[in-house]
């Protein structure tokens, strides 16, 4: 029954391959990104939400 659909779409088999390749590439790129981030920057980002208390007397934090 479903073979009808599958055969009626030209080259449907390419779809799952495209999906897999796309996902794999994007995921790999993000993993590499995440691993390459420098520690100082990460510490700063992690503490962002917690900084509010200091807001009022914030001195200019130069990065």
């Amino acid at each position: 029954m479903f073979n009808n659909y599958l055969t009626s779409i030209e080259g449907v088999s390419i779809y799952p391959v495209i999906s897999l390749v796309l996902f794999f590439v994007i995921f790999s790129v993000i993993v590499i990104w995440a691993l390459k981030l420098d520690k100082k920057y990460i510490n700063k980002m992690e503490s962002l939400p917690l900084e509010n208390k200091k807001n009022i007397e914030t001195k200019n934090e130069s990065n």
Partner: protein
Amino acid sequence: MDVEKFYYDNQIVKQFIIATVVFGIVGMLVGLIIAIQLYFPELNLGLQYTTFGRIRPLHTNAVIFAFVGNMIFAGVYYSLQRLCKARMWSDFLSKFHFWGWQLIIVAAAISLPLGITTSKEYAELEWPIDIAIAIVWLAFGLNMMMTIIKRREKHMYVAIWFYIATFVTVTILHVVNSIEVPVSFLKSYPVYAGVQDALVQWWYGHNAVAFFLTTPYLGLMYYFLPKAANRPIYSYRLSILHFWALIFIYIWAGPHHLLYSALPDWAQSLGTVFSVMLIAPSWGGMLNGLLTLRGAWDKVRDNPILKFMVVAVTAYGMATFEGPMLSLKNVNAISHFTDWTIAHVHVGALGWNGFLTFGILYWLVPKLWNTELYSKKMANLHFWLGTLGIVFYVIPMWTSGITQSLMWKQFTPLGTLQYPNFLETTLQIIPMYMMRSFGGLLYLSGVILMVFNLVKTAKEGTLIKNEAAEAPSLILDADKIKKGMIHRWLEKRPVKFTLLSTIVILIGGLVEFIPTFLVKSNIPTIASVKPYTPLELQGRDIYIREGCVSCHSQLVRPFRSETERYGEYSKAGEFVYDHPFLWGSKRTGPDLAREGGKYSNLWQYLHLEDPRSMSPGSIMPSFSWLTKQNLDTSTTAKKISVMRSIGVPYEKDYEKFANDDLMKQAKTIADDLIKNGIDTDPNKEIIALIAYLQRLGTDIKVNNFAEKNN
């Protein structure tokens, strides 16, 4: 470097908080009412406006868009200002967004009980309200994006990425799924039909879960959990991974709502594969939340806020493990159309959304009103009431779902159905329904306790409507893309970031849609399938109005147990004229795809008037008003011409004599009923509904059914 003075807008946060708790109670109360109606149908008080089919969408819409929606906005308006070190860009837009959203909710609360519905799950609201939603949502988005652009903090914290993705994706989902042609001010037909409509609807429906109930709440988790625990998030690297993987994969998973349906097989498999992959980013997010508390678990012991958040994140983990499991075809064969689905969504709604909301509210209200929580004891009691409520809700629903499904599938050694009467399987699970409503009652009483606690808290303190803050103005240095700095570069450019996340979510949607929409032979035409007659079309709209689709599916899956019970399994070509599709996602009652000709008109009439007269013990509500109300035939011509405009092949000028045909067919049915001693006439609504029910599935009962494929 100048230090600028500015004020956070707390007033808007307060307004959204009030809306959250008010609509939370309303939504849950309606949920409790429909839960009780399932074993006590008389609770609709004999009114059409309070019948299960009409107020079930009221419950889902109230909980999703009013309770969770308002909490999203409260949380976003609070955290975004502080993360951007800036007041919301436009006070007018904030107010417009707030009042616009509440008006939409009121419009939903009025229109749904009146039976004004598109019947598409979580998108039931009709076209004028759809337009209003789009406008208000864009106002929110504009306000948010401009706030981000005008920020005084160089980097965008991970919570903001989730907010941006939410805004972009919900916009796209809502617009694409709401493309409909108006028939009148409060009635429209979707341009999609049958299989395509199902695919678009569940691409939308699943991603409503993804981008309304999940991503904005993850954003809230990434902000409020560290705040409540007073320690940074466990791993920022993991949060980057979590974000991109989640928004990329979630979009593809929609078809897992349509396994074993008439949807093309490759699309079903795509949904399954991506659902299984979803475990990875979801659990990454859950672990990131839980591990934030590492070394601080002693705090959890006596801090009700953290208790709520821990259970919320755990429930998120459970629901995101269960979801992929349910999308495996062999599991789905058992779970689909049963209460297992209901159990699954309530782990998410009660556990994840509900508990995170409560945790944030207990933290936020004392902060805003500059005081301490009125009673920690009460918050702890609320925690246990809520937790027990979830247990009493979910476990009976799991049991009920599996019980009913196995009963549907049970054969005797002789090869006949063990429980040929559907009603037997319903009566078996009534005790579970009772227990579930007890769970809901516990949960709701906890929420009422919370409201009391929060009101008392607010009364003790004072709200600082405009909270003063200072921050140096931001001068963005134009840094080039350096190696390994791409993400930082992205973060500093919200517009580029937004575009990129849009592309990422579009990929999944396009791969799903293109084949199904462009390839005509995707939908094999079945020669014997014809458009509905005018009377059947009117009857179908009554079926939609009364929300029959809430309890009756119209899709026979290709299993022996189903073909044995209902008849031939459903083919894609049967639905080509169904605007909207009515496959349904739950069988509280039997499937109706092959209902036509099963019973006499007399049986259908008496059963609709009083279900228990025909099926003793049935839990279907009585639809006696259909026997009294006259059918509005003034809409027939317009309906026919709108249907023709979206591809249903009615002859040219057919609308001129559609009502003559309608009356002819109505008279035939009415005469048959009168002959059998029923006091009725052809103008009654019930006649149209019977005509529709008698038509269902009869097209392919014609034996010479042929597929034209090429």
